[in-house]
């Protein structure tokens, strides 16, 4: 009997530490859930994204002279004002944005967390410009960002943020989720107020985020993000991110991003 219990315990542990499942199930075991596991790149991303598939291209002589590039990166200093699609800020937070804009136009990186090797933070983290890896088990889904090796965990086992969690805000925040049919619904709280909603749009410590994540077609994952902040935003802000899943090597392998290497080198 004792031996049998021991065997069952070993089996339970083995099952608990098994590789991420390919087909997730609800606790009742009745319904097969989507498996989000894999490496993704944003669709139509400027900059770091991968192509639709296949190996990265080897450098080759172009068939004819390429036109000279007209820019190196998207303009991100705010000198053209705010996009009509950007979050609508209250006057207090608009002043904060304007101060950062002036600093950025002058060339200062003070408002750029990732330039200091800090995590991109939610919800800007979900831009995933350098690629995203999702690791899924029944009780937890983990999102990894190659940019700054940033991580967030979404708990699916019914746990809720405790007062201690709410008193300890972080860059990624504290995320809990549940399935509504084929859609993963995620709520994120306990976020630091020194991250950005998008670009360098500031927010308060009262910001919360709801996401609805689902496959809209095979291999195409959508994240509908709603950001609520009664202090910083005039109204909740919604945005949609779309990612394409990679099908094989080398593009389904993210690279290490040891950000402090460069900072250390500079000292």
């Amino acid at each position: 009997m004792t031996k049998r219990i021991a065997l069952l315990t070993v089996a339970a542990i083995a099952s608990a530490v098994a590789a991420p499942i390919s087909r997730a199930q609800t606790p009742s075991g009745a319904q097969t859930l989507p498996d989000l596991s894999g490496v993704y790149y944003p669709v139509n991303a400027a900059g770091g994204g991968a192509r639709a598939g296949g190996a990265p291209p080897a450098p080759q002589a172009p068939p004819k002279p390429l036109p000279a590039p007209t820019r190196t990166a998207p303009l991100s200093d705010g000198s053209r004002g705010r996009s009509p699609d950007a979050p609508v800020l209250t006057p207090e937070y608009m002043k904060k944005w304007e101060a950062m804009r002036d600093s950025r136009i002058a060339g200062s990186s003070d408002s750029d967390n990732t330039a200091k090797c800090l995590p991109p933070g939610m919800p800007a983290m979900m831009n995933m410009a350098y690629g995203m890896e999702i690791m899924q088990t029944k009780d937890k889904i983990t999102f990894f960002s190659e940019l700054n090796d940033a991580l967030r965990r979404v708990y699916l086992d019914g746990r809720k943020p405790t007062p201690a969690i709410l008193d300890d805000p972080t860059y990624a925040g504290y995320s809990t989720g549940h399935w509504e049919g084929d859609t993963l619904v995620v709520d994120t709280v306990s976020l630091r107020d020194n991250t950005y909603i998008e670009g360098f749009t500031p927010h308060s410590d009262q910001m919360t985020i709801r996401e609805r994540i689902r496959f809209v077609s095979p291999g195409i994952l959508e994240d509908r993000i709603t950001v609520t902040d009664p202090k910083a935003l005039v109204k909740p802000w919604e945005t949609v991110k779309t990612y394409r899943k990679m099908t094989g090597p080398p593009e389904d392998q993210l690279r290490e991003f040891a950000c402090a290497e460069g900072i250390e080198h500079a000292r």
Partner: protein
Amino acid sequence: MKACTFVVLTMLAAAGSFHASLLAHHSNVGFAVETVNTATGVVKEWKWMNPHTWLIVDVDDGKGGSVEWAMEGRAPGVLLRAGWTRTVLKPGDKVTVHYSPSKDGSKVGMIARVTMADGRVLPNAPPAN
């Protein structure tokens, strides 16, 4: 001895200011990203490092001499997907660099594209998906 000390101190000072400029320019906002200039020169060093790569180039000054520029590239992970490698550039290679200049006027640029002597082009990103 005095002269020797002076040379060492000068070298240290130069190294210090160079590295400080690397740190100061790690964000896109340090560069005039919508201005793209062209420089030709010889690779002095290719630093395949996080968070950003650096291409140190002796740029032709048009008077028969050269001046050292530090060109900031994208992260190794991004460049791998765009077709670059850790060893794609070597000291002595002749290159043409399209770059955005630093807003503060220092000899630091951000790379838009590098063209090698044999015509191969190293872009900033893979073709758009």
